[in-house]
């Protein structure tokens, strides 16, 4: 495992920006999706309960995309992150 850390940009949906000081994107380290998300909630602890359940698993309705692909169809939170990969937390579709 390399010691030079690539930073991954995580795109935060509008309803969660209240917990990221209104940042729309946050750059974090992490070799996998799971590590990147763990680093994200370590930086913004109030985000944690919105993304993870009590056992620390990603909540089932949280949609995470890497390179425009749903991680459910990749390797879940073990999906590796390469240089330049961006991660998006995509909200469900609200009313109307």
């Amino acid at each position, binding site marked *: 495992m390399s010691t030079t850390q690539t930073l991954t940009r995580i795109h935060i949906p*509008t309803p969660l920006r209240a917990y990221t000081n209104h940042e729309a994107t946050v750059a974090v380290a992490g070799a996998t999706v799971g590590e990147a998300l763990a680093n994200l909630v370590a930086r913004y602890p109030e985000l944690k309960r*919105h993304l993870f359940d009590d056992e620390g698993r990603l909540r089932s309705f949280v949609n995470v995309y890497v390179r425009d692909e749903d991680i459910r169809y990749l390797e879940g939170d073990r999906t590796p992150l390469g240089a330049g990969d961006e991660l998006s937390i995509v909200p469900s579709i609200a009313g109307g």
Partner: protein
Amino acid sequence: MELAHADLQTISLTEPLPGLLRRIGGTPLVRLTRLAGGLPETVAVYAKAEHLNPGGSVKDRAALAMIRAGLRSGALAGGKTLIDATSGNTGIAYAMIGAALGIPVTLAMPANASEERRKMLETYGAELILTDPMEGTDGAQRFVRARVARDPDRYFYPDQYNNNANWRAHFDGAGVEILDQTGGGVTHFVAGLGTTGTFTGVARRLKAFDPAIRCLSVQPDTPLHGIEGLKHMETALVPGIYDPALADAALTVETEEAYETTRRLAREEGLLVGVSSGANVAAALRVARSLEAGVVVTILCDAGTRYLSDSFWNPTR
């Protein structure tokens, strides 16, 4: 286009509507038996089966009412294109009604809407504009506002979030029907908030009949949630037609509970409906369990067939 124009004039001046559109509303009220098991015999839970509307959702009523209001006022004159933002269901209703009446329809919807929804809209012949998934329906609304501001004469923009015909459709529709179907016996009404049209219209009708009927609104418990169709008001663009004072209490439902109830509705009641229906029923059951006697009514908002590609049906992850 000439033909479409002529159709519009006929429709604005004469009743009745074309056959398909006459099937909107008048939905069954079904008693939940197995999910409501364990309740005393004096407590009943009923669900208004709005997913049985021809377009598959409660939004058929609102879409038809807004289109008719537009025809009546002249805002929807021949040749204009109907445009609005949608999470899917209102769009499907507009597209279906538009096809039946010869009205061109353009819809803005977040790009992460399910494939079933996109295909349905395209199959009805609507033009689809996919907006930024990160901004949800709020982004779709902003897109439509900007487009209409640039080209106001081209469009009829019902703006479902701010159109009184939306809630009035339910005031005159489901509200009256629920009173009829329960013989005036309804004691509690429980429904989720999207545009808030359903809750606002039905609650106003029930309160006009008897102010003691308790009306309880339902929202997701968190800003990020999986209850498609419902809004977390605190973090969303609040619809102009929303009247927070109308609800006797505001209930919240966790997505996981909504998913579980949606699965149970399919497997134990034979009701294949969407996640917001699961949220409504979960909240209605909670209300029912707190009662010694009462008739609790809630809404099944849309058909489960438009969620079949979603992963929540099989709770593994």
